[in-house]
């Protein structure tokens, strides 16, 4: 095998100083493994929370927004450039909810991206039992479709959610409501809507999500019951909930659907602004921690190569005297940095993976989260070793450049 002489010298130097090489490589190893570990933890948690948010939020929600009177009719009538002023604009009196919801549903279903769509009637209600009153929201849903989209079944504590279709006045209540009103499966609960309709309903199931506030306010009823509570007809629907193939496309599809139907659309990104903000904040924290680790590793390499160069300055002078160009000398020292980077990086990959694996076995058991969510995502490993080698290159460049500038005459003459 023909080994380049620069490489040979670089390797000999590394081998002659095993301890320092090991320390430098360990710095890189820490950087790389921490990079992998932190990235895996962050992606794992982000994926988990994203998935969690889809248990309550659809990818896209379509609803009718209250409109405020604007100038557009005036502008249509007076086409001149006169200034129109409308003092104290009022909300328009219009029909609540979505007009012809089943027509709209059929229209939306034509979009190839859409996988699921279900109508919902939201009603603000009071839950009453004995003398205690709680306020909350009753969602009138098609429970089969709702279960398909949001996996309601996985949150059920007791009862059968399909009883909502079978029992005429059935209701699924959150565990918080059940606890506060001391209600059990099969008990009756009085529900009073914001428009004053009172209904006595029978508890056919109790559910518990990870969010306390939801459990204390939310209930599911049959969509017809909700329409009755709001004293509306069978075509009254307040929201359409849409799931699509790839939730990352939600903002674009939401725009399309909004333009298609003329209703207000809200994608999950808008609905979960604070989740997204949390992702971003975590990314900043994580990247600064990794940055610091790599920086420290980089300084370690810089330091060790610098010391090597001071120690070997006579040898560098000799190499130059015997015909090594500045470039060759740079290559000798830069290669040392690269090998340190590669050795440390490869070990770091292994350590990072092992660390990630063991942490993913840590039992958490909070809410419905059992183990710490960790992702094993290949690009993280590629990025990690890439950054590791880049750092060593940057750290090695300056000492190597300095070595190439050594003036053999002044060193040899002493």
């Amino acid at each position, binding site marked *: 095998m*023909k*080994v380049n*002489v620069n490489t*040979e*010298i670089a390797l*000999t*130097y590394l081998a*002659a100083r095993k301890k320092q090489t090991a320390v430098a490589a360990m710095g890189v190893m820490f950087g790389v493994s921490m990079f992998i570990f932190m990235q895996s933890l962050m992606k794992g948690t982000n994926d988990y929370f994203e998935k969690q948010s889809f248990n309550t939020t659809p990818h896209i929600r379509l609803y009718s927004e209250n409109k405020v009177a604007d100038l557009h009719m005036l502008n249509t009538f007076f086409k001149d450039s006169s200034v129109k002023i409308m003092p104290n604009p009022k909300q328009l009196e219009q029909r609540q909810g979505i007009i012809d919801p089943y027509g709209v549903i059929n229209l939306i279903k034509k979009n190839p991206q859409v996988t699921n769509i279900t109508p919902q009637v939201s009603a603000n209600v009071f839950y009453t039992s004995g003398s205690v009153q709680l306020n909350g929201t009753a969602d009138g849903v098609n429970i089969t479709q709702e279960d398909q989209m949001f996996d309601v079944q996985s949150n059920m504590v007791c009862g059968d959610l399909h009883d909502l279709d079978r029992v005429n006045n059935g209701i699924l209540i959150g565990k918080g409501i059940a606890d506060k009103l001391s209600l059990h499966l099969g008990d009756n609960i009085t529900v009073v809507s914001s428009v004053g309709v009172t209904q006595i309903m029978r508890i056919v199931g109790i559910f518990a999500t990870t969010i306390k506030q939801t459990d204390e306010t939310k209930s599911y009823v049959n969509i017809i019951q909700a329409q009755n509570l709001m004293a509306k007809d069978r075509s009254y629907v307040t929201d359409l909930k849409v799931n699509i193939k790839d939730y990352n496309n939600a903002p674009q599809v939401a725009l399309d659907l909004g333009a298609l139907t003329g209703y207000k659309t809200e994608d999950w990104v808008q609905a979960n602004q604070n989740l997204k903000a949390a992702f971003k904040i975590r990314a900043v924290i994580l990247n600064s921690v990794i940055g610091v680790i790599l920086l420290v590793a980089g300084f370690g390499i810089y330091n060790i190569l610098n010391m090597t160069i001071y120690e070997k300055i*006579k*040898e560098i*002078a*000799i*190499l*130059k*005297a*015997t*015909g*090594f*160009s*500045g*470039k*060759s000398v740079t290559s000798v020292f830069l290669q040392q940095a690269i090998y340190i980077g590669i050795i440390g990086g490869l070990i770091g990959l292994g350590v990072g993976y092992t660390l990630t694996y063991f942490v993913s076995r840590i039992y958490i058991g909070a809410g419905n989260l059992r183990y710490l969510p960790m992702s094993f995502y290949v690009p993280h490993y590629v990025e990690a070793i890439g950054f590791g080698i880049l750092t060593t290159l940057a750290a090695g460049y300056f000492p190597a450049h300095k070595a190439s500038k050594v003036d*053999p*005459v002044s060193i*040899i*003459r002493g």
Partner: protein
Amino acid sequence: MENIALKTSNLTKFFHDPVDLQVLKGIELEVKKREFVSIIGKSGCGKSTLLYILSTMDTDYEGELFINGVKTTGRSQNELAKLRNESIGFVFQFHYLLPDFTCLKNVMIPALRLGKLSYKEVEERAYEKLKMFGVEEQANKQANKLSGGQQQRVAIARALINEPTIIMCDEPTGNLDSKNTGIVFDLFQKLTHEFGQTIITVTHDEDFARRSDRIIEMADGAIVSHGHKS
């Protein structure tokens, strides 16, 4: 002209630190091929300075330098490094071997850098050179495990590995006892007479100088005698 290994024209050099000082004053020098030349002079007369300029390592001078008929003045450091690698060998007062490598590797490195021969061929040639200086038994020892005399012989072997046309020595025997000095001298003579190499050496050793082909004497930055003996 073909017979000239090295030629200078009006070579002048100043030191600026700590005070301006002219160390070389218009040196005119010619060294023929196959010549064994000694440069002598008192400490501080500028002979070492001259040698380092001749070696192309020091480029901070005025005047012109020709090696093998080619002008080297004004060339880039990388070109000069290549030139040194190919046609100039060095022997220093202190051996300056690379202590992390074996003797054999030390000798091989300049040839590997040159890259004209295969690894195997370089290895064979390096071994041959070590044999020439009687240190072949030390070939696989670390360079820092050898005695001073042995190290100097390895260093000379290294200087010869690329079969340079010119060998430059700065006090090559300064650190050697008389026995080793004798060995080195005989080898040098053999190199010029049998292998046709040119040797320029700076030395304090009158005895050593006297036995060379020609003695150039320097004083106060100028050549006072070109010493055409033969």
